[in-house]
């Protein structure tokens, strides 16, 4: 076999980047599960930190709020982005670029600016107290754009002639949507739902300014971080990392085994030309 320096350099970069990304995560994972938490090599296993974290009632309330925030944001932004994607592909016509520019504009505005401007608008101009509802709405703005991008990459191969066929045979638009479109596009919707849920669950920079006195997991972690890093924070980060990893692993297995194809249908690629 021929020696190829280019190939080796590329693969080495991939490996080094992976190490860079995962080394801190693995490190704090080990730190949270061992008694010698600052330098756990070799680790002396202990679940003391984990059980302290799970027994803390502030973290429990925060977890509940974060879950609620995540579910609400994910539902709203997936529904809105689904509608927007279909609208862009089917109904926008020559105005596609205009609508697309508006819909993805939140991507190009930093999260902290979204948070601050929403705070000014709702807190100062409308005189509303910050609560979970205002945090949900502000997060939806940001997550909507991500959901739109995810769905757009999945749905642009969708064959709209299936909808036309249903209409020709007399189905109403609503019935076409629920019996033809939705069963075919649900994997894209699910992917967007999962990603936006995780993003909203972990968001600090938008939620922080709008939550008022409601604690969520990131805001509690931020508050604790100001007084120095404690092993509980390592444990918290490890738990969230593990859950996210598991969700994405399940998603990957579903895609591999073909239970859910997430919008990619090779046979349709040929048919749609």
């Amino acid at each position, binding site marked *: 076999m021929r020696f190829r320096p280019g190939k080796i350099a590329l693969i080495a970069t991939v490996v080094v*980047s992976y190490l860079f990304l995962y080394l801190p995560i693995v490190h704090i994972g080990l730190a949270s599960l061992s008694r010698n938490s600052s330098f756990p090599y070799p680790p002396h296993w202990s679940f003391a930190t984990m059980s302290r974290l799970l027994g803390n009632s502030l973290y429990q309330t925060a977890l509940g709020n974060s879950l609620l925030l995540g579910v609400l944001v994910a539902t709203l932004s997936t529904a809105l982005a689904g509608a927007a994607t279909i609208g862009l592909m089917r109904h926008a016509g020559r105005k596609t670029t205009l609508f697309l520019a508006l819909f993805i504009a939140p991507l190009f505005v*930093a999260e902290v600016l979204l948070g601050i401007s929403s705070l000014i608008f709702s807190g100062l101009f409308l005189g509303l107290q910050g609560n979970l509802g205002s945090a949900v709405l502000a997060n939806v703005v940001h997550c909507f754009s991500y959901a739109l991008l995810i769905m757009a990459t999945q749905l642009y191969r969708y064959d709209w002639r299936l909808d036309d066929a249903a209409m020709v045979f007399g189905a109403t*638009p609503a019935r076409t949507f629920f019996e033809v479109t939705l069963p075919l596009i649900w994997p894209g919707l699910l992917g967007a739902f999962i990603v936006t849920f995780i993003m909203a669950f972990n968001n600090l920079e938008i939620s922080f300014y709008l939550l008022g006195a409601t604690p969520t997991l990131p805001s509690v972690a931020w508050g604790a*971080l100001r007084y120095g890093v404690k092993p509980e924070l390592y444990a918290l980060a490890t738990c969230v990392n593990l859950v996210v990893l598991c969700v994405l692993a399940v998603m990957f297995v579903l895609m591999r085994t073909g239970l859910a194809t997430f919008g990619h249908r090779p046979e349709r690629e040929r048919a749609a030309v």
Partner: protein
Amino acid sequence: MRSRLAPWLTLGVPTVFLIALFVLPLLSMLVLSVWRTENYHIVQDWNLRNYWVLATDGAYATFLLRSIAMATAVSVICTAIAWPVAYGITLYGGRYKLLLTLGFAVPFLTGEVLRVIALQGLLGPVGLVNGVLMSLGAAPLRAIMYTNVASAIGLVYLYLPIVVTVIYLSLLNFDQRLLDAAKIFGASPARAFFEIAWPLNLFGTLIGFALCFIPCLSATLAPRFLGGPNGTLYGMAMAQQFGESGTWALGAAMGVVLFVLSIAAVFVAFRTVDLRRTGFTGFGRS
């Protein structure tokens, strides 16, 4: 006859939503920036004093220049790392391409606070790097503790995943056979890269660059917990106007400055390339 309800539902509702909760807040920030705050109260008189303060007070100019330098450096480093990674995954990833890319997305999704905590574990005074150095008997590395270098490493760590993902998506829609064709006609791998892969993926690269540059420009968390006394960045100073010091109007003016700068950066970046030459065909249609 086509119903007029569907276009209104699918395009009108998201448009109304975004105007109400995205455009109006940004406009209200603009309005607030020309008012002023006195003893934690908003005084409504229209003048540009906040901008005058920002322009003449040396500290804010320093923060801004430092932020721009930091964001530029971090975005360039991220792009320089992300390209070989994404290119390597597409060329040699085989059937594990998707898994490898998802692996990059996992840390990105776990949120900034938790990742700053992880970074503290890596770079902090009792973190991994210094722990290894000290257990080897060496002195702890001062350059990475509470300095701008630590902030930069932190920001690269935070935004590398999104740049990799964007460039990978761009490469996914790029026809690999063009590279094979170039090689058959005798181009070296380097030449095939610079004359085909790079120009045809410039659009994706720019989006990745922008999605790294904009959050870096207004970074608040990483510099606060990783940067030292000389590490204050503009976004962090802005966040303080809304927290500790309570001068909302000045903070709003800083927000406007950041917003204008971000938009200008995107505009300049996309003006310098000819989109049609980069193979950009619009939104999935020609």
